[in-house]
């Protein structure tokens, strides 16, 4: 080791810096969260011994379970809506002439670069009781008095879809880009109708993209706590809001840590499914 440092001081310095940063700011903090989740809440030092699984047990407390299930439901609806909008969108996008596609993709990533808080706030301008949507509907005579759009479950889902839609579209677009036209023609030549081709050829081939999109949407849809804060009111909380409240307000670290571990495990599970689907596809293709 000493010899290699003397031989290649630059290499050694780079490796020490990179390893140091990642161990200090990624590995250690994550270990801390795992550790905190099995410790006991302590009002003075945040956490203390003895070790136990109380925090995980607390997750199944009916009060929190209800919040979690509601959050899961909203995240699932968000993902579903993103998929329903994004799937045909990515398909249509992949069939536009190449030259225009660059511009269209650019337009899709502009929102990704703009402040998500500001965009969520912009939705509030539209959905508010005397906001644009209500006044538009009233002047068209669709409704007589302004409807309550803001501070509802629907508003949270709309907000999440609005923020996360590009994350669904981009992986879907990349699988549709790889979808070769001759495969579809072959299916047609073999006598498959439009629906059969869609069900037996297109869906299986685009499945990795669907799962990647689901992964990129479902998890943030449980964590983006500022969306319900701005659009949802106090009854439509996400897991992210619970974690934030437990850490910053209630100072219940073990519980917050346990909740975030459950979130991380959900992600790991989804990534595993994604890998599996890709591998299966690879074997069939070979």
């Amino acid at each position, binding site marked *: 080791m000493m010899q290699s440092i003397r031989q290649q*001081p*630059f*290499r050694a310095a*780079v*490796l020490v*810096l*990179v*390893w140091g*940063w990642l161990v200090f*700011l*990624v590995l*250690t*903090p*994550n270990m801390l*969260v795992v550790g905190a989740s099995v410790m006991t809440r302590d009002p003075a030092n945040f956490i203390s011994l003895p070790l136990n699984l109380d925090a995980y047990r607390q997750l199944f407390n009916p009060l929190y379970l209800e919040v979690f299930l509601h959050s899961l439901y909203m995240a699932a609806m968000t993902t579903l809506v993103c998929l329903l*909008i994004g799937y*045909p*969108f990515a*398909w*249509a996008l992949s*069939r536009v002439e190449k030259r225009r596609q660059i511009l*269209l993709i*650019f*337009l899709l990533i*502009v929102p990704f*670069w*703009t*402040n*998500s*808080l*500001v*965009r969520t706030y*912009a*939705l*509030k*301008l*539209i959905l*508010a009781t*005397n*906001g644009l949507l209500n006044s538009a509907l009233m002047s068209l005579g669709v409704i007589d008095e302004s409807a309550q759009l803001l501070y509802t479950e629907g508003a949270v889902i709309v907000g999440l879809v*609005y923020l996360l839609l590009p994350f669904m579209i981009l992986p879907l677009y990349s699988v549709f880009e790889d979808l070769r036209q001759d495969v579809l023609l072959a299916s047609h030549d073999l006598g498959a109708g439009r629906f059969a081709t869609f069900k037996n050829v297109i869906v299986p081939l685009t499945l990795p993209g669907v799962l990647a999109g689901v992964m990129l949407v479902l*998890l*943030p849809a*449980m*964590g*983006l*706590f*500022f969306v319900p*804060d*701005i659009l949802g009111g106090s009854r439509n909380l996400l897991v*992210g809001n619970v*974690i*934030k409240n437990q*850490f*910053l307000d209630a100072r219940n670290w073990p519980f*917050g*840590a346990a909740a*975030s571990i459950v*979130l*991380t495990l959900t992600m790991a599970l989804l990534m595993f499914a994604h890998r599996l689907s890709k591998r299966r596809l690879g074997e069939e293709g070979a």
Partner: protein
Amino acid sequence: MRWLSRSYLALVYLLLYVPIVVLVIFSFNDSRTGYNWGGLSVRWYESLFSNHAMVQAMWNSLWLALTAATVSTCIGALTALALHRYRFRGKKVLNGMLFVVMMSPEIVLAISLLGLFLLLGLKLGYVSLLLAHVTFCLPFVVITVMARLSGFDERLPEAARDLGASDFTMTRTVLIPVIMPALLAGWLLGFTLSMDDVVVSTFVSGPSYEILPLRIYSMVRVGLKPEVNALGTLLLVFSLAMLMLSQWILSRSKQ
């Protein structure tokens, strides 16, 4: 079929952009209530810049983004070079950690860093924000630089070594010029990510260093504030300029 798919694309783009356009238009609205049109005015921009705490938060955010982007570009570039060039034990672990940072929900990263800082007794403020922002920008820089390195002729660094250049000299004179466009693009991406971050900053910032996204957050939680329209418009123009700059750099370097 063709016009149907075209109009569908147009409709989705319309929905994506309507709120942004509304925000920009309303930022020039003279009305105080924020819903009705009260004539053209720049009063919200004026009130924004006459608010001392707001201007301070802007400077703080800019400085934080500037330093976080610079540090993460340096470390990210070195990481990418190490992953690309060196063989070392635990390379997979290193890759794995970068992957974890990029994929794990922001909020998980946020609480893990808060835990670390409190354990170390680090005062929450500029330093904690900087460490956190560099960490979440890092994987994006690494990916951008790695993509650039993967299409690169391996014989060039070898030739430099054969001619007697040390590892450091070779990196400085051969590799850095090659990855320069990726460094700039990665820097701009890091800058934007840092300027926009709410989730991580909520956890690791303290009262001593107020930054813009958190100030906006506390403003928009209660009702509508016309100043936010103006501020949002400014941020929008700003990040649009950054994005176009980075696209321009990347496309120019490909030619």
